């Protein structure tokens, strides 16, 4: 976007003169942010913009910007709350790099984003102008100072009288501003205003007609204001998919997956960022005969789910990092007693309370190796919004087929990110079978482990002849407590074999890009889109870089080592901490690698390098490109 700017008056251009007729500039993609104090509705505005663009047929990815506090001080740099929307002509798989256009409700929250380096050089800023004439002279001064600095730094700042315009329609413009801004953005990106009106209806559908009408008026006023006052307009050509698409975020996708998997009971305890999945589920689950039980704590939530699963109805518990730690003992019980259980961990920054609203891929090792003793369990990582949905259905099936704990890893960035994906077409095969109440054949044992696969049939209460006491103690085939070495090792062997039995059924994941080259980037979870975009960019530069993304972390499919062997170097890209080699006392002998690198090194004996960051935000494709280029320059990742 290099179109000529209209003459600027003063420091920021005051958008009051009618703009000349304008041609929409065609773009392939754009990144927009709406930034405000908490509670001003920026996220709803951005989600709506994303939904409208998706209905137009654009690819979208939305990323929420959430401060840790519910009500951080107003007009503070740290309190920036908002949303980023990446819109493109093609499918969009990640949040992208820096922002092209931002609407800011005050200059302080904007400053937060500028200081974080989130704005592209020369980005367009639409800034609420009410602060210019505020009664507090300090605010007036701060506003003028920031405005000048932004202008000096080369940003295109346009002052927009958001509240002033809204006040023409509503008495409390503070609450309606977001819909005004939505209207502006619909105009700027040439989106159908009609879709905007419908979006308002969807949002406020439960409220009365006056609320809907008022917000539609605000939307139209915003559109009109932009039409009359801005001298630019964009168009991102869209192509509607031939198949119906659904637009939801990762947590909603998880909840929909629970709905469609036939699971009946979800036991949870509130924790950020996992909880919104349960909010949605609480709203819709009971309509299909499900129950969301908010337990007294994380341990109880997990134990409740274990009890329900034991009684024949595979249940799910949803949590985030610290809650996952608390559940570990119960998870160990489920492993030992071979009770199916689905555990969803929407990872966040940690340890302790860490960064509850920010993303990190910090719990992979805890998921694989957590709990006490040898506790083999299945670990799946969802890599997209669509994957969040299907992972749950897969998880329920695996849990019940193998009588195992299946951990589904998501993270804070997937939790709130929105991306369209093909509307799932419901299959009865997804549902759990009815609870088996048939009599157990005489002589059948509750743990009749198959010598090859370790699999055993499970007896469920209500089955005549199946009575036994399940125990968390080591036990023999009759479920009798066993202290002898042979019985202990027999149980350990078969519980472990089940992972191998599952592994034998897994397909080798496909390589993204050329099947051989100089560098293979291996990733897992939410970084998939960014990694693949980076691979595309690097390949376009002529570098021989490909990527591999793992959905199954434990067990890991076969063939990974063979793929690695076709590349000169292998590195993982992850969002968790790994020691930096530039630190004085860090060397190969003491370096703590990123989680997946650690597992890959152990499993393949390949000298896998890693590059990771734990900034609490999604990794940008640009950062991955820089890291890979640097590794290639250093000849890194070589074995």
């Amino acid at each position, binding site marked *: 976007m290099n179109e000529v700017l209209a003459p600027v008056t003063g420091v920021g251009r005051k958008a009051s003169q009618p703009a000349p007729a304008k041609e929409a500039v065609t773009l392939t993609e754009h990144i927009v942010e709406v930034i405000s104090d908490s509670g001003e509705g920026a996220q709803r505005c951005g989600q709506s913009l994303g939904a409208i663009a998706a*209905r137009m047929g654009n690819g979208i990815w939305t990323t929420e910007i959430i401060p840790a506090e519910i009500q951080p001080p107003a007009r503070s740099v740290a309190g920036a709350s908002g949303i980023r929307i990446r819109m493109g002509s093609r499918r969009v798989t990640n949040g992208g790099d820096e922002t092209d256009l931002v609407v800011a409700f005050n200059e302080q929250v904007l400053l937060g984003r500028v200081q974080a380096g989130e704005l592209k050089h020369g980005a367009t800023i639409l800034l609420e102008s009410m602060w210019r004439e505020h009664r507090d002279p300090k605010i007036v001064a701060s506003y003028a100072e920031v405005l000048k600095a932004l202008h000096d730094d080369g940003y295109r700042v346009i002052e927009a009288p958001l509240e002033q315009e809204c006040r023409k329609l509503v008495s409390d413009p503070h609450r309606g501003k977001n819909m005004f801004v939505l209207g502006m953005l619909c105009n700027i990106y040439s989106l159908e205003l009609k879709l905007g009106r419908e979006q308002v209806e969807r949002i406020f559908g439960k409220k009365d007609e006056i609320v809907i009408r008022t917000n539609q008026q605000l939307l139209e006023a915003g559109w009109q204001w932009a039409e009359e006052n801005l001298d630019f307009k964009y168009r991102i050509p869209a192509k509607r998919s031939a198949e119906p698409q659904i637009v939801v975020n990762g947590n909603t996708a998880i909840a929909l997956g629970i709905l469609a998997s036939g699971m009946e009971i979800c036991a949870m305890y509130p924790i950020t960022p996992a909880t919104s999945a349960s909010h949605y589920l609480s709203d819709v689950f009971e309509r299909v005969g499900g*129950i969301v039980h908010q337990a007294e704590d994380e341990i109880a939530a997990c134990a409740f789910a274990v009890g*329900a699963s034991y009684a024949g109805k595979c*249940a799910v518990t949803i949590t985030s990092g610290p809650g996952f730690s608390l559940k570990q003992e119960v998870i160990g019980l489920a492993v030992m007693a071979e009770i199916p259980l689905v555990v969803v961990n929407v990872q966040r920054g940690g340890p302790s309370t860490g960064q509850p609203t920010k993303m990190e891929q910090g719990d992979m090792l805890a998921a694989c190796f957590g709990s006490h003793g040898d506790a083999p369990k299945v670990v799946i990582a969802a890599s997209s919004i669509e994957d969040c949905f299907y992972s749950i259905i897969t998880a329920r099936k695996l849990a019940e087929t193998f009588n195992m704990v299946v951990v589904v890893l998501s993270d804070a960035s997937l939790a709130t990110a929105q991306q369209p994906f093909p509307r799932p077409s419901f299959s009865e095969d997804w549902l759990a079978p009815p609870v088996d109440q048939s009599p157990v054949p005489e002589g059948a044992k509750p743990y009749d482990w198959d010598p090859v696969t370790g699999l055993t049939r499970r007896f469920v209460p209500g089955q005549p002849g199946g009575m036994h006491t399940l125990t968390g103690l080591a036990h023999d085939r009759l479920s009798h407590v066993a202290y002898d070495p042979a019985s202990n090792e027999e149980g350990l062997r078969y519980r472990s074999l089940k992972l191998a039995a599952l592994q034998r059924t897994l397909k080798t994941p496909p390589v993204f890009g050329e099947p051989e080259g100089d560098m293979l980037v291996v990733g897992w979870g939410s970084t998939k889109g960014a990694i693949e975009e980076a691979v595309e960019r690097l390949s376009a530069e002529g570098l021989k870089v490909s990527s591999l993304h793992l959905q199954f972390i434990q067990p890991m499919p076969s063939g990974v080592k063979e793929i690695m062997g076709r590349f000169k170097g292998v590195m993982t890209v992850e969002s968790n901490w790994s020691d930096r080699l530039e630190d004085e006392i860090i060397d190969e002998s003491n370096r703590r690698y990123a989680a997946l690198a650690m597992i890959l090194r152990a499993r393949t004996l390949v000298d896998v390098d890693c590059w990771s960051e734990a900034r609490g935000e999604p990794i940008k494709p640009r950062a991955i490109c820089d890291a890979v280029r640097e590794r290639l320059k250093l000849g890194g990742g070589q074995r």
Partner: protein
Amino acid sequence: MTLPATQCLLRLHQEQPSLEDYQDGVSRWCKGCGDNAILAAVQRLCRDEALRPEKTVFVSGIGCSSRLPHYMKTYGFHGIHGRAFPVAEGIKMARPDLHVFVSTGDGDCCSIGAAHWIHAIRYNMNMTVMLHDNHIYGLTKNQVSPTSPIGLKSSTTPRGSELEALNPLSVTLGVQNVSFVAQAVDWVPEVMYDIMSAAFRHRGFSFVRIIQRCPEFLPEMFEPWLHDPQKTLLLTHQDGLQLSAGVTQTYKNQQQHDPSNIDRAREIASLEDPIPVGILYRNPEVPCYEDLRHPARMRTPDFIRAGFEMELDKVTVWPDEDLQTQGAGRATG
């Protein structure tokens, strides 16, 4: 051969289970342990109520008390320390058709699992709870428990414990939604059986604290009560226990107590000497959580599909939308 329904019913009634139908193995508790008396009472209860063994689940945590399920020929769930209640709740929520019993100890229930205990009372799910309270940790060998009397010397309190004992009856009677509280002692097994029977028949969270002896670590603790029947106070009422002539002859210290009177129940609960035995409180009107939560409709695949499609409709972008129709309410195949 087919039988008319009435005949099937008759046959069910004719089924006369015996104690052996519920007995599994020989208990590994110490000689003289009060747990044996509890086991005998509960096996008798199962027989007298003719509970179908496959429809009955005994859930426990960890501790001496929690071995009880192993000696029952029903389904059993011997889980982890302190978590018997949430496991039992999950079972009951998933399967209201099952009879659920919980065996827990003073450490399991009142210490590591205390949070679950409080909330289990509040959920008031239909289950029968036996708190095996011997005032000491036995399985881990002689540590002070929350119900140990102040001054008790144990492996972790060699100079005597500093804190007053927690009173499980008072705590339970202080929680919202409490619906059944009783106390039994292992040295009056006949009354223990009557109390457990009343507990089982109460629909809700029936909490029975059973004071039991630990011959290994606290062999002397209840000697004065064993030697003096006056130190055991039996609570009787037309809506509570009715005692046999034999019991009445030995335990003459009796009091009329109406189990619907919660204020009086709280007063009785705080008595330590004599030890009150009987039904302190019963309120059949308190709703059960599983009844409140269970949806009225049967869960069929079509029902689930309809709900799922309805949700998807709200978020679907249709290819032929033509910017005119709204997704909502659109039929799909």
